């Protein structure tokens, strides 16, 4: 009798799991959900600073996936990128609704109003280190177009191709936004570390007296 080494069971791809789910296979749906929910939840959480919004978004993403006309096309990109794309749109919708109350996003290239984005931050207790907190605050303060690319590529480690699918832009745009976002973050962190140096860049007000 020959002992053969046990081959690992083949892992279903996301597309295969989606097909199984769409044909009524509960196990397929659960496997796909458990594989992708955490990243989507964290993306929504980083973007919105709200666990309630992140919870809603995660649920809505998979509800959309259960619809027959969910619109996913494997030719256009991976299912992961597609799911992040849905999550992004849902987050933006939530942010638009809450804009009157908490102006999280100015959607401009200006690096202004960083404090407003973190007033009700529910994630402060997740880490105690000052530097990490400062980085998180800086990420939240980024304009939306830069924040989403940093969250996707730097925090969730989504590859550029999937990020491009999620953001609906070319990979080159992902690269350039990421480059610009990192520059803004470094600038902001440098200002926090050296407030006097940062103040020195401001033009002195003229004293008339």
């Amino acid at each position, binding site marked *: 009798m020959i002992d053969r080494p046990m081959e690992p069971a083949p892992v279903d791809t996301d597309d295969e799991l989606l097909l199984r789910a769409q044909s*009524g296979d509960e196990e397929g*749906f659960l496997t796909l959900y458990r594989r992708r929910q955490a990243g989507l939840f964290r993306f929504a959480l980083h973007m919105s600073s709200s666990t309630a919004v992140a*919870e809603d978004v995660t649920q809505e993403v*998979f509800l959309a996936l259960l619809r027959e006309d969910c619109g996913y096309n494997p030719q256009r990109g991976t299912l992961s990128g597609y799911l992040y794309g849905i999550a992004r749109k849902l987050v933006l919708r939530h942010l638009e609704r809450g804009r009157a109350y908490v102006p999280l996003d100015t959607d401009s290239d200006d690096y202004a109003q960083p404090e407003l984005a973190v007033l009700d931050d529910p994630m402060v207790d997740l880490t105690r280190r000052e530097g990490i907190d400062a980085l998180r605050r800086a990420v939240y303060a980024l304009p939306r177009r830069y924040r989403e690319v940093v969250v996707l590529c*730097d925090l969730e480690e989504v590859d550029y191709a999937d990020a491009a699918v999620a953001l609906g832009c070319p990979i080159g745009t992902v690269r*350039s936004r990421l480059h610009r976002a990192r520059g803004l973050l*470094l600038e902001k962190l440098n200002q926090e570390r050296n407030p006097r140096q940062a103040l020195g860049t401001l033009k002195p007000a003229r004293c008339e007296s």
Partner: protein
Amino acid sequence: MNCQEFWNTIPELGNVAGSRHLAECPDCAARMSRHRELEAGFRAVAAGFRRVEAPPGVEARLLSTFRRQAGSEYRAPSHRWIPAITWATAFAAMFALAALLVRERQPEAARPAVPHSIELAILQPQADSDGFIPLPDAAGVAADEDDVNLVRVELPRSAMIALGLDVGADRAEEMVEADVMLGSNGMARAVRFLD
């Protein structure tokens, strides 16, 4: 490679292909150091969130929705096939009925040939003593009925053929005189050919 080219070719962190430029340019080296610090910060933030995931309630709600949908769409194959089975049964019944009707309309087997003499006897018109031949589907010659009328007409010889008389086909279009017996209701009862 100048500074601009360096940052244009390696915008992502971790790629140190331009290490020669970094060794020669303190500014870029310092900037790269800050980028690496930033990258380490990203990793630290991501590590802090690594265990963060959607609450179990989300999975429970989604599973409930999935089962509800699956119950109505996927999980009841017998119900799902009911329309197809119904249509298939209907078509099968229709084809069976059509086959039955077609079979009934097929020509019957040929009957045994009747001997020619018998056939002539059957076809030979039975004329009465006055030479009147009763017409088919008519009341026939009413000998005891006085209320009849005789009308002389000209008929094509083909009419004689129709009554079973032996007439050559070449003379079918010729005209022949005949007396037609009409009943009291005006209907023709019998005919007598004069030629």
